[in-house]
């Protein structure tokens, strides 16, 4: 990304370095798709509305989460979370850079941190993660113990008559 802001550059650099190499290519593509979407002509009106929707941190964080949401629906949920999450961080930084260049905000480390909180909460809520869902998940898992335990039987032991393992007790 093209920015002079050192805080944003550092964040993007750090997050990019932390991306799992296995999904790096998808990460790059998601970032690019997000930027293209952000700057598409047809999205200009919505971009303006998003900027005016609230404080800079909220506008940038929630806007990035919504962009990811749109991309996620396009990918039919196949995009790996390991790539989507960090890609959203880069989009947040891009959004903050836009705000700074437009004179809407002064990007400081504090603002970046606040925007990240907004983005994280928005993105996880967008995935439908709520307290109720987590409670249902962990609670439901316990009820599956019995059939799951029956389905997962330990591997059969070797048949007698074969060579003993080295070190095995006679």
């Amino acid at each position, binding site marked *: 990304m093209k920015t002079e802001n050192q805080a944003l550059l550092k*964040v993007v650099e750090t997050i990019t370095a932390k991306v799992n190499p296995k999904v790096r290519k998808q990460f790059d593509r998601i970032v690019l798709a997000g930027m293209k979407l952000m700057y598409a002509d047809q999205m200009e009106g919505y971009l303006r509305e998003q900027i005016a929707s609230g404080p800079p941190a909220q506008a940038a964080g929630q806007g990035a989460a919504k962009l990811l949401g*749109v991309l*996620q*629906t396009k990918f039919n949920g196949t995009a790996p979370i390991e790539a989507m999450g960090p890609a959203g961080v880069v989009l947040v930084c891009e959004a903050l850079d836009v705000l700074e260049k*437009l004179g809407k905000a002064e990007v400081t*480390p*504090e*603002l970046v941190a606040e925007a*990240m909180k907004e983005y994280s909460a928005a993105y996880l809520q967008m995935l439908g993660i709520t307290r109720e869902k987590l409670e249902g998940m962990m609670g439901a898992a316990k009820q*599956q113990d019995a059939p799951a335990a029956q389905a997962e039987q330990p591997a059969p032991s070797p048949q007698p008559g074969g060579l003993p393992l080295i070190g095995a007790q006679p």
Partner: protein
Amino acid sequence: MAFAAVGALLAGTASAATTLAAIGTIGMTMSAVGMVTGSKSLMKLGGVLSLVGGIGGMVNGAISGGAAAVGEAAATGAVETMESAAGLADAAYGGSAAMEGAQMAGLEAMGGSEGLQSAMSAFESNDWTAMIDEASNASFNPMGDAPAMPDAMAGQVVDDAAASAARVQEAYKPLQAADPMQTPASDPTKDFFSKPQDAAYSPAADSQAAYAAMPNSGLDTQSWFKDILDWAKNNEKLATSAVGLIGGGLNGMGQMKMAQMKAEENQMRFGYGNQVANFQGRQPGQGLPLIGARR
């Protein structure tokens, strides 16, 4: 409900593992950004989320009996062991294969033992409940409030459309040059994941509609964090596993890592010895033997 479209799409397909992986991933990004920006509150929130994702994944793996996480042992046995923090701590020292598998899956979700240590580095306490309280307090008293948008700026238009288009072209160029499969079309999602695209597909229009369907505001970030943190604090399974992992597991993982390093070192020694023993000098008739070669 906010973001209903995406939530509905994913609700049907998102397994517990995916959900917990998402929490863990976001937690790690928060921690990383927190470290860069120096925001303790972000680090604490991120730390708790990454622990919830990792430990939750570990617990879920053992309870649901997933073969990848549990290994050979019966899931019932793993659950019974999991119920006891002492058992979990014991297992951390290399107990049953089931526990090791579950722990490794959980640790891997957090980014390994380095990820776990990183997640915990921001906290003043190693106690699970205290850690959550720290994160909860931090989320409501962030380090430096973000400046509110002045009234005069509200409603102002984005007037730099030309610069925006140039920015996109600039960002697009390297990928165009590097990746011949990248289609320089207005469709940013085409060919991304090898999905067939309808010729009449107009992503910008669809995307516009999808974006418009999402509300601009209405999300209460602090309430959401508070809710999730409260759940994590009061969930017995999570708390028990966290106590065992943080208290005993870190130490156990440290010892396991040391044992692994020692094993690798021994392997290197034996490997070197084998190579030396297998060395053959020049065959007779091929000239003078090498100095030091065995006859």
